[in-house]
Each structure stands twice: as structure tokens, then as C-alpha cells.
């Protein structure tokens, strides 16, 4: 990797914050504390400028025109793909499929894999801490094919229980789980699960929506067969995301949607499909989005993902120690900072998360409350939801201090 910052360099958070103009605002008279980064991250000026430049100078439809602008637009769009391929260390650029986001990437695999490989009585294995987008697509295809969805249980600390993994894998045709849980922050043991699945020839799909912004993700090293993430959680624009798939798997799957771009020849007797990645990219793609995502990846690599990971880990340790000092505050998930990334889920006394979230909002502090689209986890802990504070590279210790003070103030009113 050719990161401009050397590894081991201390990030200057105050300087980084200047790259994100949205952070410089007040909410109800308080400087904004944005701690809803697991929902979506803010965008650096470099990303905004790349997209603006695209529309201002080279906007044109890709792969279709002989003309100059179309060539420039195609180069820029494919340049975005190349940056993604490098970022996750894919073997080939054509293993990177542009989708609308993580959700569409998972739906694509569920639908196409299901159509080709799932039979009555087969099983799909997911984990008990999945986002709804990694549950429902599998339920839909299971219902269609007469298959069942099995679940890896989780324990009190928000960790997967893998004791019975071998037995759980019986009858399974594909395993799907997240690298990092959006509700708990838990970092899951990918290699343990991949090794066990591959021993039986079962492919693995990894939901990396909460991982790619916090740690280095290398698809060859992880040896996952499919991987999904969203641009908008990686400082990039909304509306675009990535499906990575190993070439041999993507080639085996039937197309997802039909349309332009994904075909070689069309006649009413027989249509032949285009090669990877275009086979899975029907219709005019999100050109500006791909270019914006490319710029976001440049930005992250400019800082160095290892530097980001270290800075965020230190901040996580700091945050956990500060929050531990608050009366009645109960962490949901692991208390060990090295076991989590980006996310802190908690409750205070018997305060409803919604009440706490509202009073934090009044103080200019943006957090998420509720079940975080992961209802099975909340059922597992018998709670209505949690308050979730989630961090990004621009999150400062001051943000954490403001959060702690905000919780104390809210609790004083509510308890």
C-alpha cells in the first residue's frame, strides 16, 4: 500500500475534523457531537469535490459512447472499482461489483446463490447478531426454496458461541455473518468460521459494513467467498456499495437483474450475458457514487487505515473507562476494548433508550436509540433497545467527554 502517512504516525484529530465541514455547526445552541457514525459517516471535502468535479466536467454515460466524455467517465468509474479492489486486496478488479449498498449486495447473493444451489431441506447459517439486512434476504430465499435458516447463538458478552459450530454446519450450503456487529461492536472470529466452513466446502459471505471503516480488510487473507459493504459508512456517498465475490463463485451465479450493460447479445430467442463484473450491473450505474467512493478510499488510505484503527482503539479504551464511571450505566456487549470496534451500546438504570436519546439530542449530541435493525439481539438480552454511540476517525476525546456529561445530565432529569 502506498499510504502517504507512515504506519505508526499519530493522527491529528483536530486537523482531520477540518476536512468535515458538517461538523462545524451547532444544534440547539450546542456544538454538534456526532456519534451516529455506525448509521452513516460524514463526508470529507475531498469526496464532495470529486463528485462535484465529475458532474461539472465529465458527466456522461459509461461504457456506451465513442465520445470523449464517455471515455473519461468510464475511466473514472472503473478507477473507482480499481481503488475498491486495492482497498480490500481483491485478486481481480472484476471481482468487485457495484451495488446500491450492503443490503443489495446481500440480496444479490441470497437470490442468485439460492436459485442455483439451494434445495428443499438445505440450510443457511447466520449469526444471532446480524443486521436485519443479513437475515431477511436469507429468510426470503429459504422460504422460496424450502430451506431453513439456522442461527449461531451469542453469549452474555455479545460474543458468538462456536462450541457447536461443527454440528450447526450440518446441511448448510452457505454461511453469512458480520465481521463487526452494528448493535454491539463485537469483532467476530472470521477465520475460525471460514476454516470450519471451507473444510466442508461451504462458502462464506461476510457483511463488512461495520468493519471496512475501522480496520484493514483483506479478502484474500480472510479467504471469504463473498463480502459486502456500503460506501456511506466509509466516508463515501450514499447510494453505492460493494459486493466482492471470488471469481469462481461469481461466475457460477446466474444474473441478478436484467437490463442494459449486463448483456453481450440480445435476441428474442436467446440472450447471452456479459462477463464479470457487468453481468451483475444491469442499467446505468451510479457513476458519481463510484467516483466518490474512490475518493473516500483515497482519503482513508491517505490517513492510513492502521493509523485510524489505532486511534479509534485508544479512543474506545478512553470512552469505556469514562462511561464506566457513570452510575447505573450498563454496557451491552464486551467490556474489552480490543474485542470491539466503533460501537458502544449501553443502557442507564431503567431509563428507556428513547428518553435518554432525546435528552442527549437536546444537548447537541447525536446518538442512535432502539434496536438498531437487529431485533433478535435485543430479544436475546430482553431489552427494548439500547443507546448506541459510534465513532469515526474524526471523533475526539472532547466528544466522549460531552457524551458522558450529557448522559449524567439526562439521567439526573430522568431518574
Amino acid at each position: 500500500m502506498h499510504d502517504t502517512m507512515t504506519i505508526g504516525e499519530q493522527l491529528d484529530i483536530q486537523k482531520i475534523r477540518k476536512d468535515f465541514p458538517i461538523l462545524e455547526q451547532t444544534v440547539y445552541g450546542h456544538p454538534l457531537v456526532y456519534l451516529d457514525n455506525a448509521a452513516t459517516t460524514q463526508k470529507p471535502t475531498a469526496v464532495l469535490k470529486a463528485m462535484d468535479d465529475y458532474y461539472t466536467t465529465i458527466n456522461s454515460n459509461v461504457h456506451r459512447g465513442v465520445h470523449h466524455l464517455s471515455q473519461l467517465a468510464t475511466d473514472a468509474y472503473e478507477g473507482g472499482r480499481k481503488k475498491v479492489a486495492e482497498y480490500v486486496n481483491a485478486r481481480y478488479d472484476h471481482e468487485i461489483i457495484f451495488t446500491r449498498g450492503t443490503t443489495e449486495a446481500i440480496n444479490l447473493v441470497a437470490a442468485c446463490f439460492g436459485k442455483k444451489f439451494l434445495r428443499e431441506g438445505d440450510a443457511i447459517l447466520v449469526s444471532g447478531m446480524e443486521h436485519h439486512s443479513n437475515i431477511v434476504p436469507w429468510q426470503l430465499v429459504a422460504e422460496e426454496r424450502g430451506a431453513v435458516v439456522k442461527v449461531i447463538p451469542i453469549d452474555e458478552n455479545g460474543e458468538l458461541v462456536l462450541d457447536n459450530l461443527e454440528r450447526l454446519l450440518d446441511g448448510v450450503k452457505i454461511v453469512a455473518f458480520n465481521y463487526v456487529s452494528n448493535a454491539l461492536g463485537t469483532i467476530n472470529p472470521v477465520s475460525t468460521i471460514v476454516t470450519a466452513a471451507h473444510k466442508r466446502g461451504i462458502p462464506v459471505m461476510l457483511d463488512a459494513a461495520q468493519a471496512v471503516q475501522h480496520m484493514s480488510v483483506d479478502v484474500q487473507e480472510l479467504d471469504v467467498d463473498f463480502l459486502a459493504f456500503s460506501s456511506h459508512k466509509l466516508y463515501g456517498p450514499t447510494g453505492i456499495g460493494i459486493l466482492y465475490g471470488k471469481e469462481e463463485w461469481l461466475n457460477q451465479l446466474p444474473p441478478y437483474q436484467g437490463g442494459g450493460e449486463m448483456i453481450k447479445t440480445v435476441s428474442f430467442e436467446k440472450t447471452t450475458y456479459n462477463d464479470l463484473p457487468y453481468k451483475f450491473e444491469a442499467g446505468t450505474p451510479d457513476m458519481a457514487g463510484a467516483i466518490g467512493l474512490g475518493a473516500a478510499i483515497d482519503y482513508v488510505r491517505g490517513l492510513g487505515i492502521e493509523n485510524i484503527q489505532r486511534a479509534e482503539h485508544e479512543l474506545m479504551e478512553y470512552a469505556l473507562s469514562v462511561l464506566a464511571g457513570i452510575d447505573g450505566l450498563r454496557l451491552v456487549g464486551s467490556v474489552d476494548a480490543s474485542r470491539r470496534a466503533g460501537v458502544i451500546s449501553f443502557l442507564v438504570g431503567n431509563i428507556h433508550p428513547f428518553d435518554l436519546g432525546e435528552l442527549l439530542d437536546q444537548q447537541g449530541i447525536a446518538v442512535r436509540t432502539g434496536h438498531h435493525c437487529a431485533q433478535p439481539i435485543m430479544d436475546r438480552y430482553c431489552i427494548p433497545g439500547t443507546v448506541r454511540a459510534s465513532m469515526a476517525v474524526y471523533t475526539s476525546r472532547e466528544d466522549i467527554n460531552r457524551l458522558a456529561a450529557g448522559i449524567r445530565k439526562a439521567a439526573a432529569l430522568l431518574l
Partner: protein
Amino acid sequence: MTIQETQEEIIADFDFFENWEDKYDFIIQLGKELPLIQEQYKTDENLIRGCQSRVWLHVEYKDGQLLFTADSDAVITKGLISLVIKVLNGHTPKEIAEAEITFIDAIGLGSHLSPTRSNGLLSMVKQIKAYALAYQAKSMQQ
């Protein structure tokens, strides 16, 4: 007092609060004070599913008037519910069906009525309106 008068009174009360803490403190106290609903009515049937907090609503029709009791597991929602009930309780189905709930917006808590907030308050107001319309239709048939 008419529905409109009660709303105006609440708005005037809230004018006294100088900061958000006092305003919320008042709503939270309201929410804490009264057990709004009898346990026997906290049934699944009376549960209005909001995304974030749960709200139960029980309605009785007596001497031409509608009487409401309700509860929520979120205390701010509960405080606002008690204000809505204060405004609408004991009025005729016709009055309630025609009433416009304006005070929540006026006291700066209009976001609680936003469909995206989905905290149960909006659904409860809609449910109350639906009951009022149903009883109004019924009384017109008689």
C-alpha cells in the same frame, strides 16, 4: 373547558419555562406521576406498536363522552400522552374527531408527532381519532 381552551392553557404554562431542562423536567414529572392505565388494560390488544417505545391505550364510552387511559414504557412519551389525554378526555366523539392537536408543536415537541420518529404518540393520536369517528358514526345511527 373546550379542547381548544385546554390546549391554550398548556401552551401558556410552557411559556414560563426558560430552558429545555425545565420543560423536560415538567413533562418527565407528569410521566412519572400518574399510573395512567390499570394493569388489566395493558393487554396486547390495547398495545399500539411504535418503533421505539410501546404505548397502550384504553378507551371507554360513557354518557356520550370518551374517556381515555394510556401508558408508555418511555417516560417522555408518557408525559406527553398525559397532556393529550388532559386535552381530549371527557369530550364527545364529534368534538374529538374534529379537534386539531396543535399544542405539541407549539411547545416545541412537534418532532414527537413526526412519522419518522415513530415513538407511538402519533399512532396514539390517530387511534384516538379513529375511535372518535367510530363512536360518532355509531351515535348517528342510533
